[in-house]
């Protein structure tokens, strides 16, 4: 089971690099945007399935990489890229991870990676903004939307840095990705959820 770590000490860098700002060429928005990179050591990537319409079960991926480019003042410019090792599924129920890795589900041996890259849609607020783009899973690419938010902004009393909890959730149709097993027991809609604490200021 992964433990949520302390807020991520992000190595920040200007989007346009170091040279352009010195020349006065970088746009204001780009200067404020930061790149946040995190993986399973700092964040958490979970999937939540529904069973018999009334029950839920949650599993997680224990190996993934995420790069989020975000200007907290201009969330409409945000971009994200996530890469997940599908074989890294962890589930508390004995045997469930093996079942989910099998060809009936993620088929991790044949499709070891899932990828998502999304860009923010105009009009978003930092409290709630969408990241839309293609999700590639099991060799199938489908449009996908992550509904993200930056919440609980606060100061770290030790460092004085501004921290926020970033969460993003989206829903896939598993049948659209060819996962059609156990339809009587498990619903078609599966939620994907990412969460991480970010140092934003």
């Amino acid at each position, binding site marked *: 089971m992964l433990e949520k770590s302390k807020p991520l000490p992000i190595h920040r860098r200007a989007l346009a690099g170091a040279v352009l700002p010195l020349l006065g060429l970088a746009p204001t928005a780009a200067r404020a945007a930061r790149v946040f990179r995190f993986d399973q050591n700092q964040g958490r990537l979970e999937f939540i399935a529904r*069973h*018999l319409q*009334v029950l839920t*079960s949650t599993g997680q991926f224990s190996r993934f990489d995420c790069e989020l480019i975000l200007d907290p003042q201009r969330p409409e410019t945000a971009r994200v890229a996530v890469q997940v090792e599908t074989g890294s599924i962890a589930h*508390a*129920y004995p045997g*469930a991870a093996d*079942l989910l890795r099998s060809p009936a589900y993620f088929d991790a041996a044949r499709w070891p990676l899932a990828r998502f890259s999304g860009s923010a849609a105009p009009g978003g607020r930092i409290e709630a903004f969408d990241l839309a783009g293609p999700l590639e899973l099991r060799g199938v690419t489908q449009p996908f939307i992550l509904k993200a938010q930056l919440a609980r902004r606060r100061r770290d009393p030790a460092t004085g840095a501004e921290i926020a909890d970033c969460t993003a959730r989206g829903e896939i149709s598993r049948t659209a990705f060819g996962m059609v097993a156990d339809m009587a*027991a498990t619903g078609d809609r599966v939620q994907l959820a990412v969460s991480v604490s970010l140092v934003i200021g």
Partner: protein
Amino acid sequence: MPAAWSVAQRRLHWAMAALVFVNFLLALVMVALPLSALFAKILTYQLHKSLGLLLIPLWVWRLWLLARRGRPASVALAGWQQGAARLGQSALYALLIAVPVLGFLSAAAAPVAVETVFFLILPVPHPFPPDQALYDVLRPLHQGAAWGLVVLALGHGAMAIHHHRQGLPILRLMWRGK
């Protein structure tokens, strides 16, 4: 002291006995079912939890009836047999409440964090979040207590049949009321 068990007491006695044995068999089945039979596995787990929860109010009702109406006068048993019977019945009452409560708590502590929904209709909130260390304690306690309950109930039944064959009316009083 009443002359016989009331109808409600007798019905509760047999209903709880049936629930205990059905739920015990259900537990063996649900654990043995492979994940490939996911639908049946989920259903049996939820049914097991629901029947277990049902035992709790029935136990309270039964104790309330016992306190209010009492029990019929003891039949002519040897002193040590009366003592053993009373001890066994007390242990049965204790296990009848301990097993479902421990089961519910271990469901709450289970890391898999699947909700409890009474007969797939009524969500029953868990009193605390999943906790592996607590689960590692509660789960074997629930299992051990359940085996203890079933073994004790079988012994209780065997003794009732034994006394019945000796001509004592213990089984008849609980079955037919007179």
